[in-house]
């Protein structure tokens, strides 16, 4: 088993480690944060691995939205490159992880249809098209109705889920049921694919994927209760029953009205100031989410220590790249809207 792990992952391990070295360090991000304005920030990014992607667009077209779009194009390429080099058993999980962006694209497309936005308005909000998987986004936007757009998804993994949820959309005329159905299906598939991996891959894969699922599920449960005030039975149906650290019992406790701070402390005893983060829920929930993402980031970095011949490295690197994009998006938005330093820095991971 070990021997096959070495042969399967030797090349991809070397490649991922090289890519890992190109990620921004906290010091680099601090320097970027000191850029006086948006054009200066773009100028600095042009001297980074994102440079070639930004150079594809003329300066006058590099709006903040377009800049984020170009930066994301690098992530798409990295996914494609890693998936291509990965052993067969790992590919399915990596492709499923990539579908995370596709699900986001689907939601953006559906929102675009509902608001009557043109394709030109929608296209740069989306994650850039890739060679891995693709949905007919433009045709969907141009289809003009949610029903017709869903029909265009025939043959994709989303059709069954969405066509079943369409009955609720037709009755409620609200995208919420479609988006929840997409999310639930996505995370269940990712969990299932990760559990189907061979032993060592499964252990390392669940460490990364499971942590991500935990954070997502926990934040859903808290938001459903605190923001949407939905009933216990609805909350349970709109969340996941599995996780790495977050168990079904934790979610059911939150649904049943238990003290959220106690549940969070039980799951993540190392987190400090949980009471403060939960007390003023509405105000501090984004901060709680950032703390949880920092935990995910640490989990991902920890994967790089120890035996490297498993899927964990690829998953961890791709996750770190996605987190880096989130940081860069914060910086781009802050610099383009001239947000003061102390306001945006707290949102950096």
């Amino acid at each position: 088993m070990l021997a096959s792990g070495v042969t399967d992952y030797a090349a991809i391990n070397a490649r991922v480690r090289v890519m890992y070295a190109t990620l921004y360090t906290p010091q680099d991000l601090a320097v970027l944060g000191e850029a006086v304005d948006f054009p200066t920030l773009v100028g600095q990014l042009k001297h980074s691995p994102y440079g070639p992607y930004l150079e594809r667009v003329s300066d006058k077209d590099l709006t903040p939205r377009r800049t984020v779009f170009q930066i994301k194009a690098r992530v798409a390429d990295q996914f494609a490159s890693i998936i291509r080099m990965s052993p067969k058993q790992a590919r399915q999980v990596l492709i499923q992880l990539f579908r995370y962006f596709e699900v986001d694209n689907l939601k953006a497309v559906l929102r675009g249809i509902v608001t009557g936005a043109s394709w030109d308005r929608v296209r740069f909000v989306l994650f850039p098209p890739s060679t891995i998987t693709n949905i007919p986004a433009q045709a969907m936007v141009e289809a003009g109705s949610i029903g017709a757009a869903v029909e265009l998804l025939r043959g994709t993994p989303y059709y069954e889920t969405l066509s079943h949820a369409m009955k609720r959309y037709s009755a409620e005329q609200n995208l919420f049921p479609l988006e929840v159905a997409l999310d639930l299906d996505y995370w269940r598939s990712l969990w299932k694919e990760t559990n189907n991996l061979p032993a060592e891959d499964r252990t390392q894969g669940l460490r990364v994927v499971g942590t991500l699922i935990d954070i997502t599920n926990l934040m859903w449960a808290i938001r459903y209760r605190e923001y949407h005030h939905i009933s216990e039975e609805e909350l349970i149906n709109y969340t996941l029953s599995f996780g790495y650290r977050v168990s079904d019992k934790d979610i059911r406790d939150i649904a049943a009205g238990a003290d959220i701070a106690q549940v969070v402390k039980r799951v993540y005893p190392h987190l400090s100031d949980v009471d403060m983060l939960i007390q003023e829920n509405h105000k501090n929930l984004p901060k709680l989410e950032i703390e949880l993402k920092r935990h995910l980031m640490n989990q991902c970095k920890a994967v790089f220590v120890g035996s490297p011949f498993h899927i964990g490295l690829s998953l961890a690197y791709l996750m770190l790249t996605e987190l880096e994009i989130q940081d860069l998006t914060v910086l781009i938005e802050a610099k383009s809207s001239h947000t003061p330093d102390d306001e945006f820095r707290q949102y950096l991971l």
Partner: protein
Amino acid sequence: MFYPQAMTEVELIIPSRDLLDVTKVLSGQGIFHQADSSYMTVKNNESGAASNWQEKASAYAALERHIQSIMLALSMDEGQPVKKEFESLTELDKVRPVVDDIEKEVKQTSDQMNAEHKKLELVESNIRQLEPVAEIDLDISALRSPRYLFSMLGLLPVANIERLQTSLERIPNVFLTLRQDNQKAVVWLTGSQNNADILERAARSAYLNPLTLPEGYQGTPGKIIQSLHDAVGETQREIKELKETVVAQHNAYVKQLQALLWDVRASRMLTDAIVRFGQLRYTYLIVGWVPTRYLDDFTERIKAVSKDSIIESFTTKRGGDNQAVPVALDNPRFLNPFQSLVTTYGRPRYGEIDPTWLMTIMFPLLFGAMFGDLGQGLVLAGLGWLLSSRKVKALNSMAGLGGVVMACGLVAAFFGLMYGSFFGFEDVIPALWMQPINNIMTILKIAIGAGLILLNIAFLLGIYNAYVARDWGHFFFDHNGLAGLVLYWGLLGLLGKAGSSFLGLSIPVPTIVFIVLAVVGGFAVTLSEVFKHLIEGHRPLIEGGIATYAIQAFFELFESLVSYLSNSLSFVRVGAFAVAHGGLSSAIFILAALMGGNTHGLGYWLVVIIGNIFITGFEGLIVGIQTMRLSYYEMFSKFFTGGGTRYEPLALYPSKEN
């Protein structure tokens, strides 16, 4: 033939009373290309005529759409115009009621048909919903409105079953999975009516889609499905009867509607044309172009219907700004396939040489030289004939290419004779000239030589076009103009001198002459922008500073040099493909020998035949693409700009491409 047809610009001023007669002549001849002169319209003209015509044009357009929608509902085609000549504008007040009556009748049938289709769709949907529970022996009509129980029968994603049960752990309920496949399950959820709200919320949030039980049906699902199938049969019978009614209506109205459509369409086109006239107080101003050769006939016809009209004509010169002049290509019919190749690249401008004749000669020659084989060439010629004859319906869409394929095939056959190649056999017929595969260097040299001749022709044509257009900046200093040609000759001479021993040539011109040519040409090309600005009176002579200009000029000169070199060497491919053709044939024979041994049995001939089909199809396609590339990129880019305005004469019944 070498230029688009000569056009004359005409301006007509006609009295209001002759408006319709003149418009009929203009649109009836199919030679008048109208220009929009409505901007000349005077406000407050005679009784607001301008807006009247606009309204009429809109009314005809609406009626035309109306008729088309009826024809569409009756699956009717538009047919052909019955009348040869336009008589008078359709009277809207008379035609509208007729169209309305037909529409009323057709709409009634069409509405009934739609209703039946919707009914069928609903019944079929009910069947699909009930099919999963078809085997349940239970009167489900009893579940429709239970008094004390909450009951929901429906479809649920399998992945949600466990979550739904968890969410109802604290609520008394009965949850049964009646049937399940990989993705969906048919489930029945029931509980106390007191907990209906919670049960309903849980079911909804778990995406349990309730099955809609059709009203009026009783019994078990199996019995209901049977009743629904009966209803499907009944509805289909209704639809069949309605279809027969549609066919009857089609037959009853087809001629009337087609005639009406063409009448209304002609009226619409006529009024559209009038809307684009300049409408003065008591007269109309009409502007457009006619081919010069038809001018006298055109004038006579106008005068015949409007004696008081004033006709001014202006001969249009080839030179100067003639972008707006419509371009009617003037080639014999048999050149149409090659004309299509030219217009695919671009429509010549009015003052530009029409390269169709050059394409007609050059394209088959280059193709034939690359694909020289007597047998395969004749097969291609036959295929071309088959395409253009339209004898095979499936090939009709490619009929336009037939002429090109036939010409290419015949020239390929000629080169096959020259090369001594027959279906790939190099020893069946004697080579009247040489076998490329045995004379590789010779054929490559000849290919480059022929390319140089063609490139020089392209240079000269470009220079001539610039002369005709009086574009002196381009004529003298452009890298495809005189300066470019001088530089090209200088470079060719220097290269020729350097490689004369290799090429086996003796050039009796001193090297210094070529050096002078190259330096003078290079200098002129480098400073072309300055010289052009000088000639055109454009100031400043240099835009963006001398340093920037120097860098830009250097790279432009460099690019020109590289393109001259690549354009010239590009023609090597002609020789290379001639050689490759022989090589490919040899490979086929080696394979055939492997299959059939030395006995030349069935296997041998099978491989030879399949190989020949492959070469004719695959290599023919590649050589065709290469020929296209040489024509468009190496040749046309030197002298042909394109972008001419298409000649679209006014006609009541739209004509095909001129």
